[in-house]
């Protein structure tokens, strides 16, 4: 579960963002739509605890996140959040399998190879586990990053433009997998996008 209240953030006095309140329960999905320059990524980074808001509150699962230190926020992020970025990025020196395991290693949880293989099977890239990530297509890469986000059984999955670099076919696949997998582990799914193709996929929507 993730909620936000009265979030504001400014990069400079002229550029100030006021974000709408959101609430997304476990197993629910929320789409945040907005054009470029409306602070979509900033909003997502606030929710992902990568940025500190000027004012307002965020609650993730049972944790109220006001007044936490940077290290505590990092820990909560690692344990409770799965983040999927616009372009899938990886540690290029490592194989697909190791990139997936990396998130468990860095979060300090068990490095479960079976689970990684299972997710790879579910998401359809089981043949590529020993390849380097650069050898995969964009659609495949995005599916790998979904698997990586799911490894720690997060409470919330945040996706920043997960489909904007994908063709219609892959877009459909990726969004279905996201919805299915996040409800399977009982997580809230928050997708931030300008991609109009996703409009009809989510009943809950917020406009920036």
């Amino acid at each position, binding site marked *: 579960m993730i909620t936000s209240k009265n979030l504001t953030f400014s990069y400079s006095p002229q550029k100030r963002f006021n974000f709408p309140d959101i609430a997304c329960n476990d197993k629910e999905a929320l789409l945040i739509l907005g054009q470029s320059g409306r602070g979509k*990524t*900033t909003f997502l*980074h606030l929710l*992902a605890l*990568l*940025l500190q808001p000027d004012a307002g509150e965020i609650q993730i699962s049972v944790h109220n996140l006001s007044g936490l230190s940077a*290290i505590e926020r*990092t*820990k909560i*992020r*690692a*344990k409770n959040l799965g*983040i999927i*970025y616009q*372009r899938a*990025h*990886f*540690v*290029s*020196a*490592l194989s697909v399998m*190791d990139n997936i*395991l*990396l*998130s*468990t*290693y*860095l*979060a*300090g949880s068990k*490095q479960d190879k079976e689970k990684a293989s299972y997710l790879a099977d579910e998401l359809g890239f089981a043949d590529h586990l020993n390849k380097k990530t650069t050898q995969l297509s964009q659609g495949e890469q995005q599916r790998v990053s979904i698997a990586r986000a799911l490894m720690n059984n997060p409470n919330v999955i945040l996706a920043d433009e997960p489909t904007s670099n994908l063709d219609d076919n892959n877009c459909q696949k990726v969004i279905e997998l996201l919805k299915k997998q996040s409800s399977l582990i009982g997580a809230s799914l928050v997708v931030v996008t300008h991609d109009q193709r996703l409009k009809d996929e989510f009943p809950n929507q917020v406009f920036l």
Partner: protein
Amino acid sequence: MNLFKISIANLKEKKLNSFLSALLLTLGIGMISLLLLLNKQLDEQFRRNIRGIDMVVGAKGSPLQLILSSIYQIDSPTGNIPLSEVNALKRNPFVKNIIPLSMGDNYHGFRIVGTTPKYVGHFQAKIKEGTLFSKPMDVTLGSKVAKNVELKIGDTFASSHGLDSDGDAHNDKKYKVTGIFEPTGSVVDQLVLTNLESVWEIHEHAEMPASDIKENDPAHEEEMGETHHEAEKQVTSALIQFRNPMGLLTIPRQINQNTSMQAALPSIEINRLFSLLGVGIDTLRALALVIIIIAGVSVFISLYNSLKERKYEMALMLSMGATRTKLFLMLLLEGLILAVTGYLSGVLLSRVGLLLFSRAAEQDFHYSIREFSLLPEELYLLAGALVLGLLAAALPSLGIYRLNISRTLAEE
């Protein structure tokens, strides 16, 4: 999955960069390590053989040459001196021991040295088989000679004139092997020892054709001496031990001023030789240090560049729960792995170099330098390499503490 594995993967990802850094370090460390090894072992070899010899007397000429030829048997002798003058030194109260040496012939490149049993006693050479030479034309072989020329006790052989194996053979007089020494680790190993009379006997009867007369040939001069003054016996040089160090102060000057001989002090000449070699060694060492510093710069540049490329990866790992210190350690580990790799292969390289050098030295001088164990100085070298790796990695990696996660992730 752990930090070490990620570091290794990162190094493998940049194979050529890593290779270059490690290669430079290998060369630098290898050179320094080889210099250390050579320096130590040459020093040991040289010191071992002069132990207990306070002074050498021989014909006038270069004192260094006299030392090299009489103690180490690697240079030509300076000439001959009358035995009577050498014996006159015995009257000096400071002189404890005189070991006369007479050389000029060889067998297959191994020098035949006429001397007295005192020489054997001085190097504490023990007989392995047979007996020590006693009659003229009897010889006892050093262990290395015995191994190389395949002579057994009772075998006879003809020596060749001069100090190279291609001299004329003295076919009319044959030496007879009566014994073989145990290995001593000293110059005795590479010598054929006989008594003084053998050397005189060989050259008394040898008829030399005029065309064979060579300038500065000690054996030849000796012969000339023999023909002109039959009565006067000559030797090449003599090793002298003093009863106490006071002898060093007066005797060398007396000899140099009042006799036809010169006196040379081994410790002084060897120090002189080493200070001459030292210039070359210092230059090489400076060069090796420069290479090592370049290796450090190479580690720095390759990490700096790869860090710029991997900025996003770093931000990603930070967002997934890595602490900045953890990533900093990961980068340090990359520098350390390079340093250790460079050090190990450098030490290995120096051993290969030593083996090659030793082979060449054995062929030319019959000396072998084969001590491959790790020197204490090389542990300092390891510490130095680690510090270098750490520093070269730490400088560019400090940027990790300034990385803005959100901006880096948003930018790409």
